[in-house]
C-alpha cells in the first residue's frame, strides 16, 4: 500500500493552507485529495470581493484568494489529485480513494488532515410545506450555477434565511437582472455578517423581514410563489400573518452543516453543537494523528480565519509525523456556558504546543456591552469586554501559557455583565 506522511482530504482553502504550512514545517510528503475539477473549493464560486483583509491586508475575490494558496502549494511542489473522492477513512489512517484513472485505491497516511468543508441545509430538513417544483435552490447551488456554469437560475426571487451566501446571492441575482423581492429570516436577527446586510440588501433596497419564514411553496412544475408568515417567539408561524409573494425561484440560506461522513467512518467523536470533530488545541481529533480544520470543524464566516486555523492543523500534523505521534498527557476540558454555544478547541493539553492558544466561539443571541469570562476552578483567568456580539459573527480569544498556568481543572467560557 502506498504511504504518504500527510494526506489532506479536501483542496479548498483549509486543505491548501494546511498543506502549505505542513510543508513549511518540514514535511515533504504531503498529498491533497480534491473531489472537484480544480483546487480552491467553494472560493471558486465566491466571485465577490471581501476576502483576505486579515491574511493579505488587501481585498481579494474568492478565486484570487484561492489562487494565492494554489500558487504557494504549486511553488512547493505539493502533490494533489483532482476529481478524486475519498470513499473511506479508517481509524488506522487508511484511506480509500476513487477516481477515473486509478479506480479504487487504498493509501496509508502518517497523519490525516480533514478539510472537507460543509454543505447547506436543504429544503427537506427545513420542513417547508407545499409542492416540490423546480426552482428551489440552496443559495450555494444557485451561486455555483451562476458563477461557475454561467446559468441564470431565476427571474423573480424570494430568499429564505439571511446567511451570508443568501445575502451575497441577493446582490448577485439583482446585478444579473433578477428581482429579489424579499429576504425572510426566521430568527429576530440575521445569521449573516452586518457588512453583508448593508452591502447586499440595504444598498439595493431589498427588504429583510426578520421573524418571518416561508410556510408554503406554490406551483406544481416550477415555483409560482411562496407564502411568507410572521413567526412568534417560539418560531412558529402566526396564523393570519400569511402573505403571498409571486416568484419563480426560492433560494435557501438556512445554515451550513460540516460534512463529517468520513469522520464518522473513522470513528471520530463529533460535537453535537458544531457538527464537527471535537479537537484539542492542536486541532487533533479523538482519532490519533487525524486533524481537522476549516468548515468541516466548525462553520466560519471569514476565510481568513479558516486559513489561519488550517495552518495550525498542518503544522501540528507535520510535528506529529516528525515526532512519531504525540504523548496524550493531561487535558483541560473547555466548556461553553452562559450564552456561548460552543468553543473550538473543546480541550486544551496541559503541555500545549503553541505559546498562544486561539479559542473560537459563537454566542446564541445578540448581546451588547457584555464581558467574555474565562474561568477555571472558581478563579477568573480572563475577562474581555465586547461592545456587540451576534450569532452570525465568530468570536475569538487568546490564552497564553501564563493563563493556562493559572488554570486548575476545566475551563469555562461564558458571558457576564
Amino acid at each position, binding site marked *: 500500500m502506498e504511504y504518504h506522511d500527510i494526506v489532506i482530504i479536501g483542496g479548498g482553502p483549509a486543505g491548501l493552507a494546511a498543506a502549505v504550512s505542513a510543508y513549511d514545517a518540514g514535511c515533504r510528503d504531503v498529498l491533497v485529495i480534491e*473531489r472537484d475539477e480544480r483546487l480552491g473549493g467553494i472560493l471558486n464560486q465566491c466571485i465577490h470581493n471581501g476576502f483576505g483583509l486579515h491574511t493579505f491586508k488587501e481585498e481579494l475575490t474568492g478565486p484570487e484568494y484561492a489562487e494565492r494558496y494554489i500558487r504557494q502549494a504549486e511553488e512547493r511542489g505539493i502533490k494533489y489529485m483532482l*476529481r478524486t*473522492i475519498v*470513499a473511506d477513512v479508517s481509524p488506522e489512517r487508511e484511506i*480509500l480513494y*476513487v*477516481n*477515473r*484513472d*486509478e*479506480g*479504487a*485505491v*487504498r493509501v496509508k497516511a502518517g497523519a490525516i488532515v480533514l478539510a472537507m468543508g460543509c*454543505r*447547506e441545509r*436543504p*429544503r*427537506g*430538513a427545513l*420542513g417547508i*410545506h*407545499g*409542492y*416540490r*417544483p*423546480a*426552482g428551489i*435552490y*440552496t443559495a*450555494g*447551488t444557485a451561486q*455555483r*450555477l451562476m458563477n*461557475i*456554469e454561467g*446559468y*441564470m*437560475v*431565476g*427571474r423573480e426571487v424570494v430568499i429564505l434565511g439571511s446567511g451570508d451566501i443568501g445575502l451575497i446571492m441577493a446582490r448577485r441575482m439583482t446585478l444579473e437582472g433578477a428581482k429579489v423581492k424579499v429576504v425572510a429570516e426566521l430568527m429576530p436577527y440575521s445569521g449573516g455578517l452586518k457588512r453583508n446586510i448593508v452591502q447586499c440588501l440595504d444598498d439595493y433596497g431589498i427588504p429583510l423581514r426578520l421573524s418571518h419564514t416561508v*410556510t*408554503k411553496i406554490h406551483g*406544481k*412544475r*416550477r415555483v409560482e410563489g411562496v407564502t411568507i408568515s410572521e413567526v412568534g417567539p417560539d418560531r412558529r*408561524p402566526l396564523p393570519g400573518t400569511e402573505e403571498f409573494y409571486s416568484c*419563480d*425561484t426560492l433560494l435557501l440560506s438556512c445554515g451550513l452543516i460540516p460534512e463529517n*461522513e468520513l469522520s*464518522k467512518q473513522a470513528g471520530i467523536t463529533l460535537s453535537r453543537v458544531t457538527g464537527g470533530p471535537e479537537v484539542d488545541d492542536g486541532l487533533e481529533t479523538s482519532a490519533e494523528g487525524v486533524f481537522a480544520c476549516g468548515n468541516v470543524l466548525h462553520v466560519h464566516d471569514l476565510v481568513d480565519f479558516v486559513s489561519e486555523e488550517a495552518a495550525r492543523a498542518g503544522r501540528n500534523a507535520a510535528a506529529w509525523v516528525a515526532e512519531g505521534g504525540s504523548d496524550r498527557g493531561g487535558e483541560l476540558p473547555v466548556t461553553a456556558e452562559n450564552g456561548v454555544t460552543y468553543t473550538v478547541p473543546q480541550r486544551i493539553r496541559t503541555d500545549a504546543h503553541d505559546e498562544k492558544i486561539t479559542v473560537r466561539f459563537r454566542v446564541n443571541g445578540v448581546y451588547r456591552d457584555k464581558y467574555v469570562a474565562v474561568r477555571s476552578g472558581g478563579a477568573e483567568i480572563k475577562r474581555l469586554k465586547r461592545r456587540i456580539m451576534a450569532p452570525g459573527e465568530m468570536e475569538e480569544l487568546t490564552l497564553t501559557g501564563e493563563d493556562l498556568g493559572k488554570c486548575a481543572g476545566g475551563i469555562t467560557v461564558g458571558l457576564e455583565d
Partner: protein
Amino acid sequence: MFDYDVCVIGAGAVGTATARELTRYRLSVCVIEKEEDVCSGTSKANSGIVHAGYDPEPGSMKARMNLRGAELIRKLSKNLDFSYRQNGALVLCFDEADRPGLDRLYERGLRNGVEGLEILTGEEVRKREPAVSGDVVAALWAPTSGVVCPFGMTFAFAENAAQNGAEFRFLTEVKGIEKAGEGYVLHTGGEDILARFVVNAAGVRSAEMHNAVSGNRLEITPRRGEYVLMDREVGGLVSSTIFQLPGKMGKGVLVAQTVHGNLLVGPNAVDVEDGEDTETTPEGTDEIKERARKSVPDIPYNRVITGFAGVRAHEKGGDFIIGEIPDAEGFFDAAGIESPGLTAAPAIGEYLAGLVAEKAGAERKEDFISSRRGIPQVAKLSPEERSALIAERPEYGRIICRCESISEGEIIDAIERNPGARSMDGIKRRVRQGMGRCQAGFCTPGAMDILAERLGIPVEKVTKNRPGSELLKW
C-alpha cells in the same frame, strides 16, 4: 388497421408490470403515459412495502393479488435485479381491549394463506425491536413482509417490457376514448392511437378512463398521504416494518427502514379533489409524526432529509377493480389500485395479461427475455470489483452525487436505458442521485450538464420532470 394490439394507459407499477407480462405473447404492446417518464404518479410516492397479505378481506381481489404479488416480487427481484429485502412486519396493539382486532387480523391472514404469522407479547416485540413503545401489549408478526424500491421495481418492469418489444410513448395524455370497430381509439391531443385492446392502469385517473367507455360508473377519490424521510444514519432504529392496528382509512402510519436504509414515517390519509395534489401540509406532517411516535417514541425527526406526499386511487367499493369491463368488450381495468397496489402490481399484470391474451387468442412467444440487469451500484462493490469496472468504463470512477456516491457512469446509464431518463427526476429515481442528505445541492449542476449533453439539448431545456419544470430561467 390498429396501431397496436394492446395499449396500456399509465406507466406506473401496474401499467409496466402488465406491459411486461403482455410481451410474453405475440401481441404488439404500447404503454402511453402523460408524464415524461415511467413511475411518475402513485408509484413514485408510497411506502415501498411488500405487504404480507393479512390485511385484505379474504376472497377479495386485494387479497388474491397481494399474496401472488408478494410471491412474484421475491422471485422477480432476482430475475429483474431490483432492490428488495424481506424484513418482516409487526402490527402493534396498544390496549388489551384491542386484542380481538389483532386476533381477527391473524385469522384473516391465515385464511388468506399468509405464512409464518405469530402473535407476540409486548416483551417479545421489544426484544425484537427495542425502539418500539413500552405501551405495546401485543403484536402480529408477519415474517414474509418486505421492503422494495418502488422506482427500481417499476423501471425493471418497464425496461424488461421494452427489451421484449413494448413501445413507450411519454407526454401523451389520453383525453378521450371511443369505441372504434372491434377496438378503441384513444384521443391524445396529438395523433389518435388505435388499439384492439386497452388496459386501463391510469391510477387516480382510472375512473375517468373507465367511465369514458362504460355505463357502470366508477368513483375514485384521490387519497393523499404524507411522509417524512430521515437520514440513512438513523435508518437502523427499526429493522422490521412497524404498523399499528388498521383503521377504516387504511393501514395507518408506519415506521420502516426503506430498502435503501432510510427511516420512513407515514402516511396519513386525506381525501383531495385533485389527483395531482401532492402538497405537504403542516397539519399532515404533524399528524404522521405524532401518530408514529405512538409506535416508536424516539424517532429522530431532527434528521429528516425530505418530506413528500403521494396520492392513491381509492374506489368507493374498497376493492381493486380488475378485469374486462362487462359492457365494454376488449377494455380491461386495473382501477382503484391503492394499498397493497405496489405489492399486487406484478400479480395484476400477470392476471390481466392472461385475460387479454386469452381474448386475443395470442400465443406465447418462445424468445421472451425473462431477466434484466439493473444499473450497477458502483459504490456497493468491493474496491477490486470497483476498480475493474472503472478500468472498463472510467465514468464509473467520477462521483457526481457525494451523499449517495453515484458516479457519472451510473447517470449516463440512467439516460441511456430504454426507456431512459429524460429529466432530473428520471435520473434520481433510477440511480438515487440527489436522494441523499444534501438533497441534490452538490450534484445538481453536474447531473444537469450530463443530461443536457446526452439528450443533445441546451441546458436551459433541462427539466425536473415534465415540460414547464425547467431548472433554469433565461
